[in-house]
């Protein structure tokens, strides 16, 4: 029988199942982004073993427009991942997901209610604000 498992490609489309699935997709994406940044950061700081000039060359890149944009994206990823992570932590403690009841048509799942959706959009807004503040600081220096 053909297996028919969606696999990782099942994660890729964030538009099919509403706000929670979008938050799930963004949490994964920002997690992978932060992991990539962490590895790049280790590589970057390890440049010091090649001497002062190599270190300063790498440091100079962070002062360019491209470097600033990368740092802005990292700030945004950090803010969303942290804020949405707190939401997930609260949810898995059974808070903010509602209580079981007697479902009536049209069914509206309480676990995906206004509270959870609001937390997702607040996380997105926090990330946007953090990026704007990052841009103000980084580009303000230039």
């Amino acid at each position, binding site marked *: 029988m053909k297996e*028919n*498992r*969606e696999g990782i490609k099942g994660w890729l489309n964030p538009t099919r199942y509403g706000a929670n*699935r979008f938050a*799930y997709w963004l*949490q994964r994406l920002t997690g992978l982004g932060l992991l990539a940044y962490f590895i790049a950061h280790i590589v970057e700081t390890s440049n010091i073993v090649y001497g002062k000039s190599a270190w300063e060359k790498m440091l100079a890149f962070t002062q360019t427009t491209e470097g600033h944009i990368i740092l802005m994206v990292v700030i945004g990823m950090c803010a969303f991942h942290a804020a949405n992570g707190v939401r997930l932590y609260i949810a898995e403690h059974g808070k903010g997901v509602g209580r*079981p009841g007697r479902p009536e048509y049209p069914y509206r*799942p309480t*676990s995906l209610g206004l509270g959870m959706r609001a937390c997702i959009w607040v996380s997105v807004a926090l990330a946007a604000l953090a990026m704007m503040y990052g841009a103000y600081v980084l580009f303000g220096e230039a």
Partner: protein
Amino acid sequence: MKRVRIRVFRYNPAHDSSARYDEFEVEAERWTTVLDALLYIKAHRDHSIALRYSCRMASCGSCGMMINGIPRLACYTKVYELESDVITCRPLANFPIIRDLAADFGAFFAKHKSMKPYIINDSVDSIDGKEFIQKPEEVDKYLQFSYCIKCGLCYAACPTVATDKRFPGPQALAQMYRYLIDSRDAATDERLKVVDDRHGVWRCHFAGSCSMVCPKGVDPALGIQLLRAYLLGMNRGSKVVAELYSNKK
């Protein structure tokens, strides 16, 4: 009335090396469901299409399939509500294909059975003439989850099931909570051992897709979060095992 094009997934593992889509044009009224359209095609155009269905009223959970990329019951989905002139029907994702639109539920039911979906209580052996007394608020704790019709839509929508074969899936985990929180059940520790595993309840990332697609309002994501909360000790005091009450005079 409007004409729509139905694309039907065709694949017979016994004969076909790859899958294909067959296309059929049908006329749909405002009340025509996708199942009506498929049965019309089966009756008048191509009787060889394999699909599973029974009650035609969203009670049996047999006709689940991917309709325009989302798991839905074909009998519960009207052609008009899809707002598309092309409707693509595929077998449920994450289920092995038997043939065409018919999927194999073997692994799905095995996971359901592994949750011990029945009341475990030694007192039941001596139930003669007695009954458990439950307050309405105790019934409300599990009633919603007992409406599950095992249609598999949540299992097809879950991104964790898509990548982890050992993950029980939203249906099974919600059923675990249903029996765990039932005051007639006395096997709390035994049940928690089954799901307290890195491929168990902790694997859920609360994508919420299961609750989005559930046709019965079961909200499996809620059950899973409450199950985790129970494991974390958040609502343990809320369950007191019921005692048998004799109504014999």
